């Protein structure tokens, strides 16, 4: 094991791992973080805490991660290169690890253009691939990016995102290969709606043996309504929602659309369980966290492994 990360242990055991997401509040109220996170307790193996997602100011990911840690949960620190330079990022990584946060996700972040501070300067001192490399060198070489030695290196389990649906499609596998080369341990993908395209991407991933070098967790977001399906299709860059899906959501009465969205989500999980190289799911139930237990139950992903049955002697080979 490279780290103490629970997520690493579960992925190494061969079980399908499940992570979910907790977006910090647009204010300084800690109970808002706790309420959201509490809904996920016992149902997932790690909780991503987003970093000013969609370029909107929110409580800092690090602060919210600490709140989750104090609750006994496993937060995953998301970090975008948009808002901080390499000094600030490294000091936050040290601080996070000092609080027992051992898993993180390296991202470039949504452009400020999409948020509520479009007038802000983007930092982009380094990009997401360079961030992966930096965190890996901090962990494995015990070195700061500037080359000096770290007194007590942070041992982070390193994640990154991958979008199999963005253009140009033909280099999406190569881009994953770059992240693997930089030292990423696990990947959480963009929300998957176009399963055929995702499977085609996974085929390319397997052809290069990348699925054996990195744990790929499939991104899942249940749709609440046909309006959300249309919004995702038309307004979110790099999102691929097939017409049939929008049609299917629109084909049921309004009060049944949420159920239909959950049904689609469960069908997706079921199909993806059979895709070689998919090692788990990243369930992004955006402002719908209370649905996570139901989805997990119906998807047959419960109970989650506990720290007791994650001991080395219990590590199983292969999939359950």
């Amino acid at each position, binding site marked *: 094991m490279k780290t103490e990360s629970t997520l690493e242990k579960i992925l190494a055991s061969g079980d399908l791992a499940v992570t979910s997401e907790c977006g910090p509040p647009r204010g300084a109220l800690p109970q808002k973080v706790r309420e959201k996170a509490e809904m996920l307790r016992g149902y997932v193996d790690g909780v991503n805490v987003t970093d000013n997602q969609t370029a909107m100011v929110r409580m800092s990911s690090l602060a919210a991660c600490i709140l989750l840690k104090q609750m006994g949960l496993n937060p995953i620190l998301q970090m975008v290169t*948009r808002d901080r330079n*390499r000094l600030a990022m490294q000091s936050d990584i040290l601080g996070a690890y000092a609080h027992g946060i051992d898993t993180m996700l390296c991202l*470039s*972040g949504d*452009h400020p*253009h999409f948020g509520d501070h479009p007038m802000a300067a*983007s930092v*982009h*001192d*380094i*990009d*997401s*691939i*360079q961030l992966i*490399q*930096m965190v890996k060198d901090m962990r494995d070489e015990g070195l700061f*990016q500037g080359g000096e030695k770290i007194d007590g290196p942070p041992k982070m389990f390193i994640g990154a*995102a*991958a*979008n199999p649906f*963005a*253009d*140009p499609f033909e*280099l999406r596998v*190569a*881009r994953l*290969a*770059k992240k693997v*080369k*930089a030292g990423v341990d696990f990947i959480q993908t*963009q929300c998957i709606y176009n399963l055929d395209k995702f499977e085609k991407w996974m085929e390319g991933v397997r052809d290069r043996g990348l699925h054996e070098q990195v744990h790929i967790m499939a991104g899942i977001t249940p749709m609440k309504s046909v309006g959300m399906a249309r919004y995702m299709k038309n307004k979110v*860059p*790099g999102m691929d929602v097939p017409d049939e899906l929008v049609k299917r959501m629109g084909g049921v009465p309004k009060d049944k659309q949420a159920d239909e969205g959950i049904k689609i989500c469960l069908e997706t999980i079921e199909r993806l369980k059979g895709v070689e190289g998919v090692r788990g799911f990243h369930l992004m139930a955006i402002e719908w966290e209370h649905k996570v237990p139901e989805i997990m139950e119906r998807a047959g992903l419960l109970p989650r492994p506990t720290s007791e049955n994650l001991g080395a002697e219990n590590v199983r080979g292969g999939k359950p």
Partner: protein
Amino acid sequence: MITAERKPMEELIQCVKPYRSILLAGCNECVTVCAAGGRKEVGVLASALKMHFMKAGQPLEIQEITLERQCDPEYVEQLVSNIDQVDAVLSMACGCGVQEIARRFHDKPVFPALNTKFMGASERQGVWAERCHGCGDCVLGSTGGICPVARCSKQLFNGPCGGSTNGKCEVDPNVDCAWQLIWDRLKALGLTERYEENLPAKDWRSAGGAGPRRIIREDLAL
């Protein structure tokens, strides 16, 4: 070249309002090419300002001059004969020219008539687009001759991001995704394997991170 656009008329009027006579100084280099501050634009702006202040009952005297290069002390020196006759200078050069005048004529107010925009190239008649940030350590050799620093909205050295759609940038559908261009070019060159070489974190000292930059050429020193 350095591109620029003229500031709004109202802003220029406010700048020169306190003065009775100004020197309107154009530049015959980049800003002439991008039709922002050459001889022709100097003439047009002078007429417009004169007309405005005439109508306002506060006539403004304007001397017009267009220097060969306003960023060059040798040419700025030519203003010596005019400078004492005016209250202020309105420069139609890029920011480099404005500052050169300020440096040479220490006690004379100087105002920029242009907003200096970027280093770019002409895409077609009347359209200029950013091409270079002058980062001081050129990577174009690794990126197929397309700059990720100046042309990727997120300045990704290892792009594209997840928002590239149909060859366009997520930030502006009128802007090409730099990494799509890089990929297309690497393909055309038969160099796609180069894409997988991770570009390391940049040393920004060469880009201004170490403070204002200078070039010193001992071989050219007099």
